[in-house]
């Protein structure tokens, strides 16, 4: 188990370096740099050559690429990701102030999607082939293919503009600062409803279908027939025998989903003005704000790798064969 873990950890560290080098190279290779962003924003106002040179120098853009990377790396080992080219505030601060918003929204959506989606998946596995299961499958595919920006605007239209039941956008009401903690909690909850629905409905479909297909596969196998034959009830077979064996693909799904908890969604964040990571990433790329892009890359890369590591450990826990390593198979 320990050697298995060490091996995985080593891979993760190497992958991490690979990701930072590749992202650094990519973002610099893409045509356009922060200067061209400044020029674009200035309109017909002239930005003289000496000013452009000064900005380049400030952010080391006048150095060769490998040297720029070393500058960045030197800061990054002490968790200093430099200052944003846009507003010169520390990248670390900019990310830290947006992470909680994204995490909060995505975590609630994730819990909802999993707690509704997995039972539905189990249910449809038992009804596989029945008309009701087919109908629900079609329903889920429909749900999954609805464009989220459209759903979001419709939800707004109904619940915020016409019915005036829920706030339109943002994370807090104007008088948030004057509220009691209980009121603040309620206010935040009301602001969360529409974005959470928008985030959940498509994920729900993924969880349901994923669970269903994993369990269906297991159900077909001989040991399930054996379990049935020895007289176990349908629910017992489903939960004790089928679902446990279907856990492996679900762990994979978990490993894939966790990084989304912090990576944010540009569309939902933009429409509901949920001030999170997705919007920050999007703006940083458009404005070629290299330090911010790199800072966000590190955060997402670390979480993704940790999630992968977690999934690997869970595999080993769930299935002893994994622990033994490839040679023993």
């Amino acid at each position, binding site marked *: 188990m320990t050697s298995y873990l060490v091996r995985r950890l080593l891979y993760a560290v190497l992958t991490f370096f690979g990701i930072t080098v590749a992202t650094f190279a990519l973002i610099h290779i893409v045509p*356009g740099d922060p200067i061209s962003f400044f020029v674009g924003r200035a309109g017909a106002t002239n930005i003289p050559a000496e000013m452009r040179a000064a900005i380049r120098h400030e952010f080391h853009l006048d150095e060769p690429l490998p040297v720029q990377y070393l500058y960045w790396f030197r800061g990054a080992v002490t968790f200093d990701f430099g200052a944003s080219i846009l507003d010169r505030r520390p990248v670390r601060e900019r990310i830290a102030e947006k992470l909680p918003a994204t995490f909060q929204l995505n975590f609630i959506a994730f819990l909802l999607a999993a707690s509704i989606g997995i039972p539905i998946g189990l249910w449809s596995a038992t009804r596989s082939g029945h008309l009701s299961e087919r109908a629900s499958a079609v329903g889920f595919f429909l749900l999954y293919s609805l464009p989220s920006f459209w759903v979001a605007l419709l939800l*707004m239209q109904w619940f915020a503009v016409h019915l005036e039941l829920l706030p339109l956008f943002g994370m807090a009401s104007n008088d948030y600062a004057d509220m009691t903690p209980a009121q603040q909690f309620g206010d935040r909850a009301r602001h969360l409803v529409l974005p959470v629905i928008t985030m959940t409905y498509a994920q729900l479909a993924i969880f349901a279908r994923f669970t269903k297909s994993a369990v269906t596969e297991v159900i077909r196998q001989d040991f399930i027939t054996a379990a049935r034959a020895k007289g176990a009830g349908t629910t017992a077979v489903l939960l004790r025998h089928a679902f446990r064996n279907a856990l492996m693909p679900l762990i994979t799904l978990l490993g894939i989903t966790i990084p989304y908890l912090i990576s944010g969604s540009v569309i939902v964040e933009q429409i509901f003005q949920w001030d999170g990571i997705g919007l920050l990433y999007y703006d940083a790329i458009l404005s070629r704000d290299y330090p911010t892009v790199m800072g966000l890359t590190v955060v997402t890369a670390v979480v993704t790798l940790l999630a992968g590591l977690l999934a690997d450990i869970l595999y080993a826990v769930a299935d002893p064969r994994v622990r033994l390593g490839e040679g023993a198979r």
Partner: protein
Amino acid sequence: MRRLATDISTLNPVVLGSRYDRYVANYLFTPLVYLDRSLQPIPGLADAWEISDDGLTYRFELNKKATFSNGRPVRAADVVYTLRKIADPKTKAVQVYDAFSSLDSAKTRAIDEHTVEVVFRQRLAAQLLRFNDVLVIPEDVYAVGDFGKDFTTSAVGSGPYRLVRRDVGKEIVLQRRKDYWRERPHIETVIFKVVNDHGTAFNALKSGDLDESVVPSDTWLREKNNPQITRTIDFQRFYSLNYNYIAWNNRDPLFKDKRIRRAMSMCIPIEAVIRDLFQGTARAMSGPFTPDEWAYNPNVPVVRYDPLGAQELLAAAGWKDSNRDGVLDKDGKPFRFDLVIMTGSATSTQFAQMAQAELKKVGVQVDIVMMDGAMAIQRLMAGNYQSAYLSWDLDADPDPYAIFHSSQSDGGGGQNFVFYANAEADRIMDEARRELDPSKRKDMYWRLHEILAEDQPYTWVVQVSAKWGLNKRVHGVESSRGFGFFQWYPGELGWWIAKPQSDPQRAASQPRDAARASAGS
């Protein structure tokens, strides 16, 4: 409740980045001179000024009552400090540096507590107007700490409002100053909300969460006659100093010849563009100046849509369809080029497709290339493109030096990325930007207008009006000649809000709210 379509980058008025930064700064700071409704200079922080005959020395008398929001009087030394900061390249005052790069920092000084003498090494006709961008800051506050980093979320200025808080990415709250030294504005609290998405912003206008917002052309045209919506929202539009154009790379073998550029312009169906694409909310352009500017020469005609004439011009330049494949050719090469457009604008794409279809009729093949802003601008600056559909936002002064003077290409720091070069035009632009006599200057620009229209370095397409939605409770909204609702005086500082009681709409909705509240509990 106002909208910021993107969050501001800083509250420091010297290093402002975008127009949104300026929208906010306008409430917190006072410029040395304000611009009136026709964009002429009027007293701001300065009550009066004198300009020396050589146009190099400006003497400003500051308003003696002026105070900063921390209670301290505004002194001449603060003005000097602000100007020196702007003129220091290390400050990176991207938006204003150009107009103050010839400031003589050593000779610029405070004569007494309320008099400043500002000295330049070079005369600039637009200089007085550019003092509108000098938003004065108190030296004792801003000299402490890192100038670039430490004042992005705090502000001390001499404007009519003071900052309550800036919640980065979310909102900015401003409170009217009780001790303001000029006529106080009507509105007590101004809240800027960051709302990036246009769809959300329009919904917010409808629900009353926003009182004003720019509205995309398609939404504006669709909803402006919807009676349900016009009950609460006022749809307005105005022309700002802005136009759309096709830039032709004058160094590209295809577009070196001004006859070819004219032929291209003759293929753009301006009237159809205005009618179909903008439903009449745009107007044709004949050259580099908009009809609202004094530099605009009304005698210069708009290039008429004339595909047959264009074909003749192309034939005269040697372009014929010799192999009968429907595309013109010359020396075995087809007439084919890339048109760059920027992502994010539906009307740009529609326009490009219209141009593509029209040019195909005369045997010219256009390939539309979409790029994001930063990428497109880098290609343009490097001259690595053939043509591009773009737009300019202009300054209050019409000087087009940075765009069309031949010194402003090739790393000259300017934005003449079409590589236009005409000796007479260069001479006029050189002289006009130093000429202090307004009537002489006007004659020069009228002549320049003719030359540029003749040479067609651009195809001037249209000036599209800015489209706005305003809650009907907002009153006193007026448009200036060129700056629209904002940034002139009084502009947005003259707005006022009707009391809720006088609004029958709101009164009628109150019982409904009460009923719902009781039903919910």
